């Protein structure tokens, strides 16, 4: 990376939503005292009539959004992922997914991006629980470019979705946004033949770094970006697994029920494939920033490269 990226995914989202909301007055944003955390203050300044503040009430946030979607609005409900995916999960299941209302649920500061704020503020179960709800897409962009592509698509689709965004700027995975993006279609970030890293969200960058490190050691590691946990690109996962025989899934989520589980489900009938699930363990985490925790739990580029090397040897 020549220059460190300073634009967080949530800022990229805000830019897209401002553009889309200016074009279409039905595009609205709802916040639960979370416009600052979601980087949506600029949206509120520019389009105050299209921003609904509901106060610190996540259940209400989701139900009100569902009611507004019922009336033809295109609500983006933004709230910290830890609360949105837990406190209001039943409203997501019933009012949004089951009633089939076009709400985009934006879980901000997802995963461990709140770092030292502790378990109350971590969302490490959100993939597991949202993935099990019918009629709900589950999406997690890798960087600001993918965030932009994703939200442009989301502004025009009519399917309920949960989108998890991290809090801090992440290093770019794409040079720009001039690439094909389709919900449900995995993207090969790096080609490789010895093993495949299957990553989603902020772990994509770590997997790419691992692949670069391995390359120096003569190991060819493919990196597959599963930005859509649902719909899940089983074909791409199976293909990559068959081609390499070795799979390492890595996610900023509990090792239970998330990306690793989705990969394992896809590969359950495949023969001769080794799959290692890397993620956060089933315990209260040590205190630290995202990158400190990535290192602690073996999810950073160097640790992943080490794991990949062992797997190939």
């Amino acid at each position: 990376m020549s220059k460190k990226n300073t634009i967080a995914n949530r800022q990229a989202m805000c830019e897209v939503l401002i553009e889309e909301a200016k074009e279409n007055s039905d595009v609205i944003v709802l916040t639960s005292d979370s416009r600052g955390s979601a980087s949506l203050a600029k949206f509120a300044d520019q389009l105050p009539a299209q921003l609904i503040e509901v106060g610190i009430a996540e259940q209400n946030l989701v139900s009100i959004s569902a009611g507004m979607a019922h009336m033809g609005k295109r609500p983006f409900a933004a709230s910290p992922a830890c609360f949105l995916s837990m406190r209001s999960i039943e409203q997501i299941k019933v009012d949004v997914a089951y009633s089939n209302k076009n709400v985009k649920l934006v879980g901000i500061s997802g995963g461990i991006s709140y770092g030292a704020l502790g378990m109350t503020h971590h969302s490490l179960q959100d993939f597991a629980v949202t993935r099990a709800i019918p009629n709900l897409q589950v999406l997690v962009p890798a960087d600001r470019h993918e965030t932009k592509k994703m939200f442009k698509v989301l502004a025009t689709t009519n399917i309920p979705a949960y989108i998890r965004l991290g809090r801090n700027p992440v290093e770019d995975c794409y040079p720009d946004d001039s690439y094909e993006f389709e919900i449900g279609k995995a993207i090969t970030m790096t080609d490789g033949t010895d093993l495949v890293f299957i990553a989603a969200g902020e772990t994509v960058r770590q997997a790419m770094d691992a692949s670069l490190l391995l390359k120096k050691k003569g190991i060819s590691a493919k990196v597959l970006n599963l930005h859509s946990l649902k719909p899940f690109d089983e074909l791409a996962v199976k293909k990559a697994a068959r081609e390499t025989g070795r799979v390492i899934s890595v996610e900023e989520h509990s090792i239970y029920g998330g990306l690793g589980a989705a990969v394992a489900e896809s590969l359950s009938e495949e023969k001769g494939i080794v799959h290692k699930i890397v993620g956060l363990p089933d315990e209260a985490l040590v205190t630290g920033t995202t990158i400190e925790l990535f290192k602690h739990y073996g999810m950073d580029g160097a640790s992943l490269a080490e794991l990949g090397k062992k797997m190939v040897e």
Partner: protein
Amino acid sequence: MMEINELKKKAIEIRKETLEMIYNAKTGHTGSDLSCTDILVALYYEVMNIDPKNPEMINRDQYIQSKGHAAEVLWTVLANKGFFEKAELKKFSQYGSRLIGHPNNKVAGVEMNTGSLGHGLSVSVGIALAGKMNGDNFHIYTLMGDGELAEGSIWEGAMAAANFGLDNLTAIIDRNGLQITGASEDVMKMESLKDKWIAFGWEVQEIDGNNMEILVDTLRKPNKTGIPKMIIAHTIKGKGISFIENKANWHHKVPTEDEMMTALSELNQQLEELKNV
């Protein structure tokens, strides 16, 4: 417009058909259905601007049944209004049926799926708020149970409705005083309900919720500008059938053959009395 006496007769017919549906399916929330039957009849036959032939009509009034478990009476009313064929009522709760034990928007006339308590009011706030933003001209009615008010999410919705000045929203509490465990006041004290809703910024009216004349009159009155309206409808759980009335154990109980015959004969007698009015 229907005369009050005709509405009363309709409510008895609906009670009969609701009971038959529960009796046939051997499942249903008998007591809960009967307590709010008059409210649904007042809304669907007199108050709401709806068109069963055009269920998604622009600017139609909308009804959200937050106490979703009283689905049997809703299905009966919707079928009678012509949203679907009455013959389908026989399929209630049967294998593959879309008429399930809670409102389901696969059926025309149902706006939102409900069944988990404490959702309807907040959803209605969203509908009313979007209506305001769109400049639409319609009213939304939300029916809640009284036991349901123990759900904290109701009070999030209560705050928001007043905050957004939703005078296109009327909520109704079916205050029958009983829930599955027993008396609602014993399960969780909630009086003074009226004071609570006033404190939350609502205009509150307490009425006899099984009195058709009063119901229609109260529901028809427009809201005060910028203020959501709450009607605390004091009802009798199991209303209309002597041995079901005011019995908590009839919340989710199905009549036996003998009980069914007695119930129908009581309702028929009430119909006869109204014919002589």
